[in-house]
């Protein structure tokens, strides 16, 4: 990170008491993106569009940072902003807990639904979040499609063995 960027960011961060906890760590570009997103979420919560504040401990994994960055740049229909924020929140809680491998596509669509999708050829597995505290798992295999199967798992539960096996098979 350039010194100019760092200076700008530090000034920005210092202006907000809500993000002061990160000033002692070495920040990457992605983290800066995340921080901006974090500030946006906090701002949303203050303005009443969302009724929570993400705790600093949620900021843990790189995937969580990428999800936050995706939320920052995604175009969401106005009426679905609350869903997108809640879905982002749920996804970040889960990815921090379960430590997923690989590099999934992070798909946050204008309806606010967020998906983490790992796909290789005919095989795929996806985690879908709609901000309802539940992650829906979908599989794609020859003869089986994402929309034709699915397992719902509360975001604080462990992911089922079938998900871990499917993901492991794709990451080999």
């Amino acid at each position, binding site marked *: 990170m350039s010194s100019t960027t760092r200076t700008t960011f530090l000034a920005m961060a210092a202006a907000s008491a809500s993000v002061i906890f990160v000033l002692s760590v070495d920040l990457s570009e992605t983290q800066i993106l995340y921080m901006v997103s974090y500030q946006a979420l906090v701002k949303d919560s203050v303005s009443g569009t969302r009724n929570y504040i993400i705790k600093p401990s949620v900021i843990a994994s790189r995937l969580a940072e990428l999800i936050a960055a995706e939320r920052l740049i995604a175009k969401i229909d106005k009426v679905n902003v609350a869903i997108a924020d809640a879905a982002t929140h749920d996804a970040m809680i889960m990815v921090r807990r379960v430590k997923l491998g690989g590099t999934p*596509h992070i*798909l946050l669509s204008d309806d606010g639904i967020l998906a983490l999708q790992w796909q290789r050829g005919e095989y795929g597995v996806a985690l*879908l979040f709609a901000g309802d505290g539940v992650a829906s798992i*979908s599989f794609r295999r020859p003869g089986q*499609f994402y929309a*034709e199967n699915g397992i719902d798992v509360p975001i604080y539960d462990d992911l089922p063995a079938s998900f871990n096996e499917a993901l492991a098979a794709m990451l080999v």
Partner: protein
Amino acid sequence: MNDCEDEQRTCHYRGKWFGFGTVRDSEHVLFAVFQDTPHAESSLTEKSFTSNLINTSESLARVSYVTSSVFDRCIVRDRNVLGIASAHVSSIRMRRADIKLNAITKKVRAICIVDQVVPGDCEGHAAMGYGEETAGQGISEAQIGKIRKNIRMDLANEFSAIIPTEQHQWPWHVGVLARVDGYGEI
């Protein structure tokens, strides 16, 4: 109940004697990819499709009936087109979605394809949208959102890789005239 009743009758704004008739299972359709259409390298992603799917107005071109010049004039217009992706109609129509209702899981049509032509569209225009029952009674908004996202992920996989328009084999104008309403199909 038929999930896609509109597939059985023409949706041409001038009535059943106009256009090329309902979209047949044996046809192929094209999805135009513009500069601002989200995609991943040479493939469509679920984000390539828009909320037009909700009211069955996601535009497609019917391969048999849209010539290169018609595509440029009526579909591309003055936009920057990156390429096209194609899919077989029957493959898309075969897609089903699972709807969980209390103790049972119901399979419903995921996507419908109709010969929708409105003023300004070319005659070979078609449109696709979610099956009505993907948002049936008793399904929560969150569930509908997830079901439809899964459908879009499947839909992206149904389409071919994106190719430049000049690599597509466009029908000849004379050939298109000979295929009106399925009669004299070449």
